[in-house]
């Protein structure tokens, strides 16, 4: 078992954004994590990545209890994550952004640079390597998120809507990239609203609603479950609470 979350909860004040979520992820899997807006997917990611401390529950990674460890420690252990809203280092060049990630396993500048250049090539960012990241649009920044995390050499990658906002053509390229990363032995958890992405990547999906896991299984079967349909349609019926 690579990752194991046991009854993880996260409260903001009296509001429970994640409410006793448990899951297990095997090394080598690609798992889809879906759910309506505000379901708690990003908050759950923040807990797994050490960015937020869970208010209850335990998280084990490769046998270590990482519940109380810092975000840096998570990265060192091999948990990498992208941010839903890209957290680009805008004053640095695209290459420098990726080098910050690469320095984790390559302390020397020349080695980090070489590694970062390799990753830029794989992620299709070579053309903008020496531009300031400020100049990138959202698709470029999303791609840079993936490149930067990849540079840290993760065993588990958490992608939070890393493929959102791409054109259909770009989407195919991005899906191929995620597959290639997976083929190199990286385990992935993918949050995505676009069903096409989930169906194209994941053998197993987990459905979040109001902080809880309400369904789990192969994507084709899960999307047909009454609880899942209700979670999505119920929201649509009431109107989306958040834009």
């Amino acid at each position, binding site marked *: 078992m690579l990752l194991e979350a046991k009854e993880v909860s996260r409260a903001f004040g009296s509001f429970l954004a994640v409410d006793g979520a448990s899951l297990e992820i095997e090394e080598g899997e690609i798992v889809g994590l879906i759910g309506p807006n505000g379901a708690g997917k990003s908050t759950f990611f923040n807990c797994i990545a050490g960015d937020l401390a869970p208010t209850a529950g335990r998280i084990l990674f490769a046998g270590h209890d990482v519940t109380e460890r810092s975000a840096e420690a998570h990265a060192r252990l091999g948990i990498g994550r992208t941010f839903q809203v890209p957290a680009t280092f805008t004053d640095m060049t695209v290459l*420098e952004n990726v080098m910050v990630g690469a320095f984790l396993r390559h302390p020397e500048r020349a080695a980090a640079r070489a590694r970062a250049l390799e990753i830029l090539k794989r992620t299709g960012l070579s053309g903008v390597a020496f531009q300031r990241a400020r100049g990138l649009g959202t698709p470029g920044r999303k791609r840079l998120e993936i490149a930067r995390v990849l540079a840290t050499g993760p065993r588990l990658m958490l992608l939070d809507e890393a493929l959102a906002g791409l054109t259909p053509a770009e989407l195919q390229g991005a899906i191929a990239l995620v597959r290639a990363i997976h083929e190199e032995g990286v385990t992935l958890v993918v949050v995505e609203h676009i069903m096409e992405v989930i169906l194209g990547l994941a053998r197993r999906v987990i459905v979040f609603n109001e902080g809880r896991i309400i369904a789990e299984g192969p994507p084709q079967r899960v999307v047909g479950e009454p609880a899942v349909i209700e979670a999505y349609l119920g929201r649509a019926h009431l109107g989306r609470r958040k834009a």
Partner: protein
Amino acid sequence: MRWRPFALAAALLVYPLLFRGAFYQDMGALVLIQATSASAWNIVGGYAGQVSVGHAVFFGAGAYLPVLFYELWQLPLFVGVPAGIAVSLAFAFIIGLPTFRLRGHYFSMATIAVAELVRLIVSNSGFLGGAIGLMGPARPRGWWDLVFRSAVPYYYIFLAVLGLVLLATWQMERSRFGYYLRAIRADERAAKSLGVPVSRYKLYAFMLSAAFTAAAGSLYIIKTGFIDPESGFGILVSVQMIIIAALGGAGTLLGPLLGAILLVPLQTATNTWFGGGATGLTYIFYGGIIMLIARFEPGGLIELWRLRIAPLLLRRRGDAHAP
């Protein structure tokens, strides 16, 4: 573009030979001290983006300890320099360790509070000369007292120290340390997620910065032979470092030096014009500079050049390969 730093270095080397008046040589030495302290501030305030408003505490420690050692044991001033650096490192550790763990402006507030507290304590401590301050040896007892009639020897000592600080900064810029600091400035949360030990690196940057600032304070006492609480620990000492670095370009290697070259002569000139009654004016002047930088180019003059003026010139020349 690599020739520019060398041209600058050459100009600084020959400056006192070309401008032989005592006024110009004194001003040159002052430019170098200010450039050194602003460059030191730049490590934590510019590269790491952690704005210290209390760097006077390090400048003051660097200035006071040598002269205190002289007062107590008649030691030459340079003997106390390592002590000033050590005290500054200790201060930086004590301020940085608790505040860098917190988000928000605790760090800036803690630096200003500590600096003001230290200034008050020093002003009221008899053995530190109280509000009047302390004086070094009036007459040289030997070369080791480093008392020179001309400003030129000081100028070259200061230039060497500035060179050292800039060399260290340049090395830092090109290493993991420098990349990590810039990542921390840009987005701490993202830096952490990529494995950057954020609090630890901020502390390292702060301590390195403090040590170099103390060295600048020591240079000051070695040249002037006199220090009081206001010129060592005063809030203007801290603000001066920030303004100079921000004007030239915080977070760039040569920005603080550029800022000092522009601002110090301007200040000397206004002081001469308005006499001693211009202290209030200084604040207005600083406020104005801060507003201009914040409004038009937060990256200072170096960024203004790189991002706006240089591309314009290149385009006019019809040069296709902009950097």
